[in-house]
């Protein structure tokens, strides 16, 4: 009976992987998502959310490229305005974006610091042996803006697209590679399964950890070796459970005659709509603008 419930679990997981976006709570998915926000998807309804994931993927790549093309104030203003517009359209609260920024504060300070002090050029101020140059300030500033925009830009994508949708888009975009014998569908499938399993394994970790703590295990105190040793009661059950789940999932897929991407249809095929065309147009205009601004002001 235990097997039964677990099998049902893995079926639900598989179904979740395949149905893709908007599949709603499958089994106790709702419960799990409460615990962990994976890929930090922010649930709301907006133009950006409804947009085809391919558009969002392409736009994100284009945006990242554009950040490296421009290297003057005007260019960054354009990039900033574009980003602000998209964020506004996405209806994701700005505080979610800011929250994501916290993880790179350290990197930002180091990168900006190096640029500030180690760029040769016209000296403005000197602290002890460190010289601040005009070029340094410029570089540090641009570097910081670039990093922040980069992270914000890509988090707009992950905040507005479910992981399933994202892999679907990727599969479709990489579709042409199939002719080069690249197993695109299989890769996308592996990605969506892997993504789907992250919250499950996190939850499992939490559960096992609690169970062992209830048996007096101590994961916090002690030196490094003792700490590493204390992980054994956590890792062994976790691995066993991961293998068990993988096994169940494979069985469930096989029972439904899953044979990879051959002649497979989708419940929700990706079809470009009018808004997607418009979005591509906007992105193109944005790119042209970025390049033009760079050329004119140079």
């Amino acid at each position, binding site marked *: *009976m*235990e*097997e*039964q*419930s677990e099998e049902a679990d893995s079926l639900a997981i598989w179904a979740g992987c395949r149905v893709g976006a908007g599949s709603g709570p499958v089994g106790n998915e709702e*419960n799990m*998502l*409460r*615990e962990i*926000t994976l890929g930090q998807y*922010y*649930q709301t309804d907006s133009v950006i959310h409804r947009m085809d994931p391919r558009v969002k993927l392409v736009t994100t790549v284009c945006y990242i490229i554009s950040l490296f093309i421009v290297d003057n104030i005007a260019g960054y203003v354009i990039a900033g305005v574009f980003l602000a517009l998209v964020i506004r359209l996405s209806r994701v609260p700005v505080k979610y974006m800011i929250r994501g920024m916290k993880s790179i504060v350290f990197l930002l300070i180091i990168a900006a610091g190096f640029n500030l002090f180690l760029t040769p050029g016209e000296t403005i101020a000197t602290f002890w042996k460190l010289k601040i140059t005009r070029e340094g300030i410029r570089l540090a500033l641009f570097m910081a803006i670039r990093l922040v925009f980069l992270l914000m830009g890509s988090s707009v994508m992950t905040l507005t697209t479910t992981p399933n949708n994202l892999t679907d888009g990727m599969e479709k975009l990489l579709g042409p590679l199939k002719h080069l014998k690249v197993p695109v569908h299989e890769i996308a499938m592996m990605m969506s399964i892997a993504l789907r399993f992250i919250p499950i394994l996190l939850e499992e970790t939490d*559960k*096992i950890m*609690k*169970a*062992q*703590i*209830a*048996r*007096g*295990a*101590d994961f916090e105190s002690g030196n490094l070796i003792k700490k590493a040793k204390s992980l*054994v*009661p956590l890792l*062994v*059950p976790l691995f*066993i*459970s991961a293998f068990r789940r993988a096994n169940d999932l494979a069985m469930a897929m096989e029972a439904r005659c899953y044979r990879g991407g051959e002649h497979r249809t989708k419940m929700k095929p990706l079809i470009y709509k009018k808004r997607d065309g418009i979005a591509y147009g906007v992105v193109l205009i944005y790119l042209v603008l970025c390049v033009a601004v760079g050329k004119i002001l140079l």
Partner: protein
Amino acid sequence: MSLILDHVSYLYEAGTAMEYTALRDVCLKISKGEFIGLIGHTGSGKSTLVQHLNGLLKPVSGNVYFNGADIHDSDYNKKELRSKVGLVFQYPEHQLFEADVFSDVCFGPKNLGLDKKETELRAYAALKQVGLEDEYFYQSPFDLSGGQKRRVAIAGVLAMQPEVLVLDEPTAGLDPKGRDEILDRIAKLRDETGMTVILVSHSMEDVARYVDRIIVMNKGQIMFDDKPREVFRHYRELEAVGLAAPQITYIMQALKKKGLDVDTDITSVEEAKEAILKALKRNGGAV
């Protein structure tokens, strides 16, 4: 020995869009030697509640007291608490990790800092308490059957010799025989040691036979907290929240409706038999 929950509330994901109230103002007093059934539908907060009993979760508001001391005081010894309030999680066999059964059961007492001899004595006693035969002691726990694994896992907690034993759905996924075995073991254990036992379940049928107090949870709140027969009287309300009284309650209710004057406050088949016979006798054998 007493465990007190004083106006305990708990939220998951506090402060985010996915905030969810798991417990709402729960007050509870558990005294020594009680045999309690904690019942509720999936998501009613039972598992969250039991994790408060040994301090795994800290209430967002309210306090938990064990023997009069607030367990979330900064100088409170949580480790000792966890040895006194033994918590067996759902599917506890998933937490087995050692190479053989015996060392796995030793894990708990070893963590308490007991010496080797005492640890092994306790592990042996615990394995005997759950009724596992000696021949399995040095096998890999992963080679055992589902029911045996579960018993090993329960022994892992018993070896810490807790004063309160909390079991979260100890029969989930077991066949009827395995289920009865585990529950009978627990009941016997409780009779022998006099420890407090809290049995979490979503099945009235399971608990009704054993416990002498039932706590019904619904949407994070305590709905009923009374003797089984008192709780089953509210079988209509129980149905409304996705639970049910034991089948025997329904039979007695139906008999009464048909005109047989039986006592409907019945929790077991044996009691029902007596009650029906008594009613029949009163009717002079004619129905």
